[in-house]
């Protein structure tokens, strides 16, 4: 048995593949990992520093005559990357194009229902990208500008505002129509760690730090999350990670 200390990007799937196990369950369900299994109910969410026991390989002997062909079926399990792309209101994005790349694999398939994009990946790949585009929003129908009525004499005071008199430049509005995520595959931690909560917040679009500990900045983000989702009465947001972990898991992990 070998002991492996988890590093960023590790999960049971990647460790199994790296150690030539076709199915991660062989490692995950090994008795020597039972304590870790209890602590980490999701095999794809480990914490840097976790210790995983890598079991020794068992030799399987199967009789077979020589000079004959024998068919051996290997049950090779698939590991996927499953992403759900949503807008700020958590409504599925109607993407025009969608390109997912992980390692040497890529696909260009628009999101399915609920914004789901999934692809089989090599579990040892830790870097990827997701790029989507979407059509620009339809601006509201501009009201026909009313013809400026001729001013009476004497003109009123104050005179009606003439917007054209103000010559300040306003940056031309260009709607955002594309987004790209740099994917850190295998780096999601369990929901009950501070980092796990913050990374879920990052994924959900929040400007959270990728941190290990709570501070004023994390409190601000958590409060904003609590407010937006009406998790507490207005003004009573705690800002504590512990108070949002369960909700974050539901919002982030479940389709």
């Amino acid at each position: 048995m070998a002991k492996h200390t988890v590093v960023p990007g590790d999960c049971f799937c990647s460790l199994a593949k790296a150690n030539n196990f076709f199915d991660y369950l062989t490692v995950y369900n090994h008795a020597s990992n039972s304590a870790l299994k209890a602590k980490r109910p999701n095999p794809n969410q480990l914490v840097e520093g976790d210790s995983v026991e890598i079991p020794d390989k068992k030799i399987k002997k199967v009789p077979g005559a020589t000079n004959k062909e024998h068919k051996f079926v290997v049950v090779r399990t698939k590991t996927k990357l499953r992403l759900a792309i949503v807008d700020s209101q958590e409504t599925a994005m109607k993407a025009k194009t969608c390109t997912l790349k992980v390692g040497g694999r890529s696909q260009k398939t628009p999101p399915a229902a609920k914004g789901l994009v999934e692809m089989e990946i090599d579990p040892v790949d830790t870097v990827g990208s997701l790029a989507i585009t979407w059509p620009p929003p339809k601006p509201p129908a501009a009201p026909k500008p009313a013809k400026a009525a001729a001013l009476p004499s004497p003109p009123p005071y104050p005179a009606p505002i003439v917007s054209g008199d103000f010559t300040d430049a306003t940056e031309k509005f260009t709607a955002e129509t594309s987004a790209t995520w740099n994917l850190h595959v295998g780096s999601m931690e369990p929901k009950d760690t501070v980092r796990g909560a913050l990374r879920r917040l990052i994924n959900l679009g929040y400007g959270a730090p990728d941190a290990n500990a709570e501070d004023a900045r994390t409190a601000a983000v958590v409060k904003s999350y609590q407010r937006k989702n009406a998790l507490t009465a207005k003004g009573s947001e705690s800002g504590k990670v512990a108070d949002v972990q369960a909700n974050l898991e539901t919002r982030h992990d479940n389709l």
Partner: protein
Amino acid sequence: MAITRDAFVARTAHDRTHINRLAIPEYGVIEIRVRKSDAKGSKSYLPAEAIPPRAASGKGADDFHFAPGPQLNSGTWVTDAAKNDDVEIWYDLYNPFLAIEKATLELFRRFEKTPFWTRELKDEELSDGDHILKFGAKTKWDGKIGVHADFPTQFVTVQHSPYKLKLTVKGKGVCNSHVAWTYFHVLAGKIKIEYGPKDVLPASVAGKADHRKAYDALIAQGASPPAAGAKVKVFLESNIFKKGHSMFDNSLFTEYETLWDKGPLIPLFATVWVKDSGDTDVLAPKALGRVKFLWDWESKLAAQGLTFVDQAQDYDKSTTKPKGQNCHKKRGGKRGTGSDPVFPKQAGYAPAAALTPAAFPFEVEEIGKTRKWASYSYAWDDGKLASKTGAIFQPSRMGGDACQVSVYLAYDITKKGDVVLDVADDAPLKVQPALKDTTGTFEVWRDIHFVRYFKKTAAVANLTIATVQGIYQPAFVRLDDKSGGATAMAAGTWNADFTAALGALGATDQDLVDPAVNQHSAGPHGCDFRNLANWISAIAARTGATVPAVTAALSGAGIATAADHAAHCNNIGSTILQGLFDKHLHANEGANIFHVDGLHNHTAAAASVLRGYALDLPSGTDRKCGYLQLGKTTDYSGPPNDIREMTGAHEFGHHFFLPHTPAAGEKKDYKAHDKSVDDCLMSYNYTKPRKLCGFCQLRLRGWSKDALKPDGAKNKK
């Protein structure tokens, strides 16, 4: 630019279904307002293409206004810390994802691309939801923007109103509403013209026009300028008389010009109120800034109903700017291109707690562009005259000229920076009542003082001075009676002064007077002389010659008959009375009347009755004069044509530079009278009630004689 983010994603094992939800953050501006309360504030705008993440309140109006800065107590004129009209800058951000990296507030005024004030929002100010911008510990804004060259009071002001407050956000994420803005105003509430204090005028200098005296005469008619529709008289003391000058040239014009030059100086101030957010007019001096106040005038002189005068007044009356009948520049007035300013330039000085004596406090500049007859002034933002502005109003010196003054708030500018009110339009300029104030009419009058009325005895019937005054009123001349009434001379004074004057004559002429006669009690006539026979006897007694010899000698000198004797008495009597009255010329500048009933006791024998003289008194000057009234009531045919007061007015007329009409005996036409009339006061036409002809009136008013012609039709243009 594409949105780029990091995502930390878990793999999903073959027997699991968990996902990684990736959301695209959104941020934006919902709304920004300047407000007194939620119910009272400005209206927010978004670009037409904006799609805000949530709806704005839709509250507010484009005409929201407030009064920035400290306010004065109207009683003490000192800042009252309890008074203010502070407002909130309220804004609503959509930023639940903390995606906003930068949020900038900017203030703009019209026609300027760059903001004059900016502030970057920080920290908690960027959080999702609505905010009231803090200024230090306060959540209220008093309008202060800090140091800026165009905002010398450091507050937003009437000068640059209206304003645009813009909030622009930048961040990482989708933003369909990146900017919002709102408009607000700083408005004037009202303007009120008042007189400035006398102390801002130059100190009085002996021999020069006394502006402070003219001011006192103005204030005596009311502490405030005349209201619209009313009239006040501007009296210009001008005791200018012909001695040492000529009646026949333009000396009156030049002497009057030397004295009053470009006209009287009348300090006009205007208090300016600002409208607060509750539409109450308050005194907020910092809220005015360097806003311009346009001082304007209109000619209000009307036709006088005398053809010659009306023709002369009708000179380019519809083509000058301003229009009207005030005296044209070519005749010495201030109407017409190139005229001296009615609101002359003033340097002013910085606001202070006390005024500098004899200095005008407000800066005034003459408008050089279009409305050249008007001027701009600027207000004080502090000190004794905070919330006030003003100008020196200097109408022409021409009697009869009438001006109505208006002051306008000239805040509005065009894209090119031109002042909107700087136009050549006829007054009144078309603005709302809050932006202007207008006075009634200031009418210029010459003020000649009548300082002494001496008569020989109480038996001499007084002249009715009011009648004499009335004759000069059509010429806008006030003959101001300061005499205190007619005074009969004491017998002792009369007799002593008579004796002294007689003693200056030769012995033969002295013999005309019997030294035993009490001249004062002899009668109301000026001199009591011996008759011809007694005079001859007196000469004979003194010289030892015989009566026949004296008679022959006098006859040889042209004095043979009673009529000759009476004529000689006229000469001698005039000389004696001139010497007598010379001692009694009033010390003050002005006109004097000396009155006897008949020159002497033998006037009945004279070929003609002398009614009066414009005395050429030795101690008289071009500031002091006197006339001698000789005619008795019985010497006149009576009203309306022939009364003693017309003699008084006629003789004063000479002192006032008016010669006889050509028909009165002057051989030459001095081009000083209306040739179409024969009843000028300066004629001897006793068949009509004489009055000043139009030419005389205009000269008395100060118009240039050289610019007028006796043919009235030729004076019109």
